[in-house]
């Protein structure tokens, strides 16, 4: 789960990491009022989950309240990568930036632990730094819940040219690590971490992602979820026990199992079609889930055909066929539906579907080809 920059900075502050004063605003008037309150220079920053806000014109640094209001008018309502900006953060920006560094903590699958990624090159895309000048990236990791004091000390003094900043950087590292562990983050990043002309080390921008599996014990984090930024279908699907991701194509997919669902998308693509979604209905033949899945697929106006690809394991295909018939009877679907059942009791299951308008297929590949043809309006 993602949160906004202003929310990340609130959390930073809670964990003792210095951030500049900020106000959230949803109207140009609020932007102006916040700028007046701070006096002096402020940054007006679009709050959207997508990256590249700056390049899209979503961040403006202005000298006074009137200019802040103008900036607010321009940024609020702006479209950034398909997302409409509904709120901005107004950030006090009086201090001058002397140097910019990068500090990130990630869940690192390679070391099966938590890695610190640090660089004296901040304020830029860290992946680019890693690719072009890997020697400019300093990393260390821990696999326990204790802060890696010794390694952190070694790196802390190297982010800024002034060695006196080491203690402040170390404090930031400690705070970020504590936040990462206590809030079940999968990524906590400060970019840039700056040294300003008042000799302060401050987190100017930040990004935090959380482990979805741990949200059950992070009630306060769950409250930070911005439904405007989420795909409502994906959230609803999750509540029903389905795993759903919207894509751009015209063939709706319903599959059991995440791996098979990905393979189904790939196969559609391989044979020249476009999948409309990823959808894993899980291992059960529960008609409620199947009904909801059909509703999800048919609510997408782009969908021209539906492909149901089920491999029965412990769940038997005749049970699955029963679930599909039941849900099919409950909802009115005009779209062509291609269905393929494989595995345990597949033949029995397919036989049950013979006298229905469903288009049956005997193999994964033939099902994919039939669905592509059906989506093109060809007779199948």
């Amino acid at each position, binding site marked *: 789960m993602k949160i906004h920059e202003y929310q990340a900075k609130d959390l930073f502050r809670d964990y003792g990491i210095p951030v500049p004063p900020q106000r959230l605003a949803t109207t140009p008037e609020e932007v102006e009022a916040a700028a007046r309150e701070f006096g002096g220079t402020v940054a007006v920053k679009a709050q959207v989950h997508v990256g590249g806000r700056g390049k899209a014109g979503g961040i403006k640094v202005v000298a006074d309240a009137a200019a802040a209001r103008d900036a607010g008018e321009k940024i609020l309502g702006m479209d950034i990568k398909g997302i409409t900006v509904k709120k901005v953060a107004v950030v006090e920006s009086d201090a001058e930036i002397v140097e910019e560094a990068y500090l990130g903590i990630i869940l690192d699958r390679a070391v099966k632990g938590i890695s610190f990624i640090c660089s004296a090159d901040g304020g830029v895309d860290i992946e680019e730094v890693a690719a072009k000048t890997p020697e400019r990236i300093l990393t260390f990791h821990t696999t326990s819940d204790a802060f890696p004091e010794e390694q952190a000390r070694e790196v802390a003094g190297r982010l800024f040219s002034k060695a006196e900043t080491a203690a402040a950087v170390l404090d930031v590292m400690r705070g970020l690590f504590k936040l990462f562990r206590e809030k*079940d983050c999968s990524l906590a990043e400060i970019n840039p971490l700056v040294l300003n002309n008042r000799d302060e080390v401050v987190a100017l921008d930040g990004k935090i992602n959380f482990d979805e599996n741990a949200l059950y014990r992070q009630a306060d984090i769950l409250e930070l979820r911005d439904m405007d930024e989420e795909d409502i279908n994906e959230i609803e699907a999750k509540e029903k026990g389905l795993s759903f991701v919207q894509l751009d194509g015209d063939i709706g997919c319903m599959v059991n199992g995440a791996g098979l669902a990905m393979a189904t998308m790939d196969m559609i693509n391989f044979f020249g079609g476009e999948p409309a979604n990823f959808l894993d209905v899980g291992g059960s033949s529960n008609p409620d889930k199947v009904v909801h899945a059909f509703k999800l697929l048919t609510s997408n106006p782009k969908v021209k055909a539906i492909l149901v690809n089920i491999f029965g394991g412990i769940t038997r295909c005749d049970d699955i066929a029963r679930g599909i018939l039941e849900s099919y009877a409950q909802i009115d679907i005009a779209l062509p539906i291609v269905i393929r059942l494989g595995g345990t009791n597949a033949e029995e299951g397919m036989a049950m579907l013979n006298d229905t308008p469903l288009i049956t297929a005997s193999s*994964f590949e033939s099902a994919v080809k039939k669905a592509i043809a059906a989506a093109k309006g060809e007779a199948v």
Partner: protein
Amino acid sequence: MSILVDQQTRLIVQGITGRDGSFHTKQMLAYGTQVVGGVTPGKGGQTTEDGLPVFNSVAEAVAETQANATVIYVPARFAAAAIKEAADASVPLIVCITEGIPVLDMVEAYHHVQKQGCRLIGPNCPGAISPGKAKIGIMPGIIHIPGRMGVISRSGTLTYEIVHALTERGVGQSTCIGVGGDPIVGSSFRDLLPLFEQDPDTDAVVLIGEIGGDEEERTAEFIGSEMSKPVYAYIVGQTAPEGKRMGHAGAIVSGGAGTAASKIQAFSDVGVPVARTIDELADTAAKAHRPSA
């Protein structure tokens, strides 16, 4: 032979009285697995429908039954503790089926298991089966036939699909393992391929990878330098959009890393054929390894 699981496996089931645990205990018994007991805290002293003793702790179960493997079906919020308990009792093989364990809990459990010198498969996995011998987990035994092809995958139903395609073509399997779809799993492809390499009853391995992480890339390095047996690969997630978790918690392309293209390239570079479809994968494996009956 085969790897990990066979007739010598003496299995206990953690969460044996739960819905999934009791259902799959029956399935495993029916397949011929020696299930010797189970653990549910607070229900020690009871006997299951199948006549198996229930214990309060793994340590007690191991002492009473001489179990050498355990399978975990407990809910996500208790599963990491269950893994650690099994490791504390020095159970050599721990298979965790549970999906949805917080990843920081798994960091701790993973290193705990390593320290105790145990082997963990999963979490969020279907388990392991040596066809005709025994199975630990939730895979349908019926689609497998005994043979000499190892199968290793991050997925569940996709693995069944591929095993089914192999079986249809007369290619039997020595052992099939799902390592799990989470970012942190107990055993990786890289950890388990050496077992297939050393197993005299495995001739070749079918490997099914997916997007996310760099496990496939590191595995390719191992295959290139140390593996003499042929490996046939298939990678899913080529059409997955960046930054979206595709069902499996670990299946995510982020910052351009973990892409299917990078994994396919890594395998191709070390001479591992990467199939474009499941049928192509099964056909290639069958052509080279179908028993000349």
